[in-house]
Structures are given as structure tokens and as C-alpha cells.
């Protein structure tokens, strides 16, 4: 069904919209409210990559079907999983992941959007921001509360970020 969707989506012709392509990061642990994602898109940001759904990032390749399945799963988890905020990822791994995500998805910038009081996501932000700044990649950051549906301030900030990219970015 997904393959069919991709096929049909690529055939759809629609005028290109004047939006900024962004990578969304920091919301890894639980799916944020859908309204938050809609808010970002309405504010003029196309989310072209994200770190939502942590479980999807544990295994980035095929796991061998031969041999001990538990060992294979453990091996895949240890050697094939993405550097996420839930892992100890030293030496700039997380920053490199983010820069790569921007390059591979032709993104214009990065939105850090972590739940408030989320130590793992918030503590690594300064390191990731430093990696982006070395590459001159625009970014903005804000926090959201997991059980609220009030995103007016976020919409304003994301909209300003998107506008600033479209108006003043080199891209």
C-alpha cells in the first residue's frame, strides 16, 4: 500500500508551494501532538526529515534471518541503530547525523522541538547547534508541553523562521 501511495504521489501534479524544507529533531521519545506537526506545516515548514518514532531508528538495515535471532537483534541494535538522543553518542555523532539529514533531504534549516523537561533531547542541543553553525545551517528551537494543544507561539516562531529562510537565505 505504501509503495502504491509513493507511486501515485509522485504522479500528482500540483504547484510548488513556497515553503521552507526543515528537519525536525528533539521529539524522539513519544509522538508529539499531531496538531503540533500541522502547526509547523501551516507556518510554512515542510518537514522533510525527523527523529519521530524512535523504534524505527533502532534497525537501519536488514537483520539476518539465519542464526540466533536474539543475537542478531542485539547485534543490529548495537551496530546498525541511528545515533539518537536516547543513546550515548559521543564525538559529534548526533551533530553529524543532523548535518547529513539536512544535506540528504535538501533541507533549508533545522527545527529543534523538544518536550519541556526532556533532559536527553535538551542537553544535546548545544552540541548539535554547534555542528549546524559550523556548516552555516539555519536553525531555531522551542519546547512544547506534551499535554497541551496551544501552539500559537510555536506557529509564530516557526513562521518567522520559515520566512527568514525564504527571504534571506542563500539557498
Amino acid at each position, binding site marked *: 500500500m505504501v509503495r502504491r501511495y509513493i507511486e501515485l504521489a509522485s504522479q500528482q501534479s500540483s504547484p510548488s508551494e513556497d515553503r521552507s524544507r526543515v528537519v525536525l529533531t528533539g521529539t524522539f521519545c513519544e509522538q508529539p501532538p499531531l496538531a503540533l506537526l500541522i502547526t509547523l506545516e501551516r507556518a510554512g515548514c515542510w518537514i522533510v526529515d525527523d527523529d519521530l518514532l524512535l523504534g524505527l531508528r533502532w534497525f537501519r538495515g536488514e537483520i539476518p534471518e539465519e542464526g540466533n535471532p536474539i543475537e542478531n537483534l542485539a547485534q543490529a541494535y548495537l551496530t546498525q541503530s541511528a545515533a539518537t538522543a536516547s543513546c*550515548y553518542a559521543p564525538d559529534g555523532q548526533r551533530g553529524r547525523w543532523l548535518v547529513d539529514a539536512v544535506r540528504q533531504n535538501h533541507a533549508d534549516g533545522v527545527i529543534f522541538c523538544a518536550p519541556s*523537561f526532556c533532559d536527553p533531547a535538551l*542537553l544535546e542541543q548545544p552540541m548539535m547547534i554547534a555542528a549546524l553553525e559550523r556548516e552555516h545551517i539555519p536553525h531555531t528551537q522551542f519546547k512544547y508541553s506534551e499535554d497541551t494543544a496551544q501552539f500559537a507561539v510555536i506557529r509564530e516562531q516557526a513562521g518567522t523562521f520559515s520566512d527568514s529562510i525564504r527571504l534571506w537565505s542563500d539557498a
Partner: protein
Amino acid sequence: MNRDKLQEAAVQKEQSMVLQKQLIAGYYDSLGRAREDGKRVVSTFVPGNLTELLRSFGLLPILPEINALQSGMRKLSANYIAEAEKQGHSEDVCTYVKCDIGMLKSGNVGPTGVKLPNPDLLLLSYTGCFTFLKWFELLRQEYQCPVAMLHVPYLANGRIEPHHVAYVVQQLHSEVIPKLEQVSGRRYGEAQLSEMLALSAQAEDDFVWVLESAKNEPSPIDAYFGGVYYIGPIFTAFRGSSEGVEYYRMLREEIAQRIRLGLGPVTPEGTMERQRYRLVVEGPPNWTSFREFWKMFYDEGAVVVASTYTKVGGLYDRGFRHDPSRPLESLAEYCLGCYTNLSLPARVDLLEKYIREYRADGFMINSVKSCNSFSVGQLLMLRQLEQRTGVPGGFIESDLVDPRYFSLANIKNRIESYVQMLAQRRAAGVPA
């Protein structure tokens, strides 16, 4: 000898306080001299610390949480936190981390004014606090030194299983000891480690005796505010040392004397004579207004007879002792059993035991804003404890080392209201 003279004599005998301060100051001095003394240093955390193992290699531990809380007590933490926030750290995250990062960025001068050496190794013993992982990612970026990772399984079922111990011991053999050998240039010596563990167990016996002295009425100690001084040597660099043994021997003798004289704990306001309420406290204290916080309890005649914070560096009062005959297994069990590594049900069980064993009139939870490991689930714990024991709980909110989150008037108001409620219950004949 009249009571006043007895009391004066007892206060004069509080030599353990002087010794404790000397030990901690001496520890910081030794860190300051580490380079000229040719000593290597290892940065590590209090819960699940491997002090004896480090010392057996001639290594000195640096404990970032201790630096942070000492900075908090000395009113240095606000500027360090501001510095970390200037570097981009969120106002929401652990203030120990921000205090540590801010101190580092401000020249890495420790709380006693001595410049701290850069660590030669980061030993990440991960016991129940997820923040430790990211904290050491940040430190690794700053210091560029090797990291030894010790993963301690979380005790989801509330008890230590043999496979937990085997898993930790295996990591000690394959990960930790080789890196300590590399950094120190020494071979692992089990005999020396065992000798140190025997000293640890000796100090732990006296430490537990001190904690359990609060079962007396009046209690000769305050097991929270006073308790944080008592845990100082055993949670920092003095486990497995003759200095540590001497401190706890001296402390025990002093408290035995207080029991004989029927005296209460020594507080900054003097000996506490009026003990109206016996409380159990859950959660770390606030360090930036520590004395004011303690005085709020003192003024209400509330003495703390047991606390969970004094168990973050080991649950000795539940029977654990370092065992020289099984050195690495014993260190593994120590790491696994720290309070921060316990599940919520296990924490509730422990608090319930404290309330009953120490005949508490109530319990108080100090929920600190920036410590998710401690604070998550505390309201649920409060409800369960009230249901199980019938003893009323109080709930206050503050922070570890960020003075912006210590609202003196609000906290005082809550403590006074809580104590008034205890008084009304007592007047109405409601059993504790």
C-alpha cells in the same frame, strides 16, 4: 552536672563535624595538587561509584554532583548556571549539569577555590539516571579523554538477580578495569581492593548504626539535613580508607553520647530540644538555601528520622555491605542497589518501611524541578504511601542548585500548613 552543662559538653564533642570538613577540604586540595603529585583523576558519579576500585589503582575520583552541590551551598551555582544557559543550555534541564558545565567554562575552579584538574578518564557508571549519559557526552566533548562505560541494569522488578551481577562483573573485567589499568599504568590487584572493601564494610557498619539511631526518641540525629553531612565521606572519596573508618567511628561515639544524654541533633540553630514531629523525607534537599530550609523544619519541631536521599550512594541500612571475599561481585551489587536504581514500587516499599520502623508522624516529599529521576512518580508515591500507612504526606517543590526555584515564602507556608495539619490530627486523637 546540669542539663545545660551536659548539652554544652555534647556540643563541644562534635569533633566529627570538624573532621568531616577537613576531609572534604583535604579531598579538594588533593585534586588541586593531583598534577604535581603525579596523580591521575577519574570523573565519575556518586550513585554506583567505584571508589575503592579507583583508589586501588591510585586514582582520585572527581564527582560532578558533589562539585555542584558544594557550589550550591557556597552560593556559587547561580552564576555557573547562568554561564551554562548562555552557552545554550535550557532552563529545564538538570541544574547539576549546568552548574558543572558553567564551572568548567568559568575556569574549572572547584567550590573550595582550588582549580580542578581535567579528568584523565570519564567513568560513566549509569545507575538509574538517564541524564548521566548526556552529561558525559558534554564532558567528553570538553575534555577529549577516554570514557569507560558501566551499564548497571535498572531494577525493574525491585530485586537484584544473579544475571544482573554477572553482567556488571563482566563489564568490570572487560571494560572498566582495562581502562583503569591503562590510565593508571598499574595492574589490577584484587588483594588491595579486598583490603579496601574490608575498610568500607567497617565504616558502613558504623554509618548504619548512626542512621538507625534515629529510632530513638528523641532522635539524636536529623537523618536528612544532618544526614547529608554524614554521607559526605562515604559517598565521596573516603570509602575504603582509614580516614573514612575513623570518621564514622568518631561520629558513632558522639551520637552514642547524645543518646545517653537524651539530646537531639546538633543543628545550625543549636541542639534541637523540642521534637514534636518525626518525619520521613523523600527527595534531595535544596542546596542553595540549605540552612533556611533546615530551619523551617527546626522551627516547627520537626525532626527527620529517615530519608531516601541519604541512600543514593548505597542502601547500607537494608543489609548491604561491601564484601572483601567477593570484591567485584560486591561492587556490582552495590551499584545495582543504589536508591536511584530502584523502581517506583521498590521506593514506595522502602518509604513505607521507614515510616513504620521509625514511627514517623508524617512524610514529606521535596520534589526537585530539575531531577527527573527523582521527581517523576512522586505524587503517585505520595498517594500510595498515605493509603498503605494512613500517615499523611506533604509535598513541596524546589530545586537542587538553582536558587531561582527556591521560593522561601511558599515552601515555608506549605511546611507550616502541613505541620498544623499534623497538630490537628494529633489533637483529634488520630493515630500516626
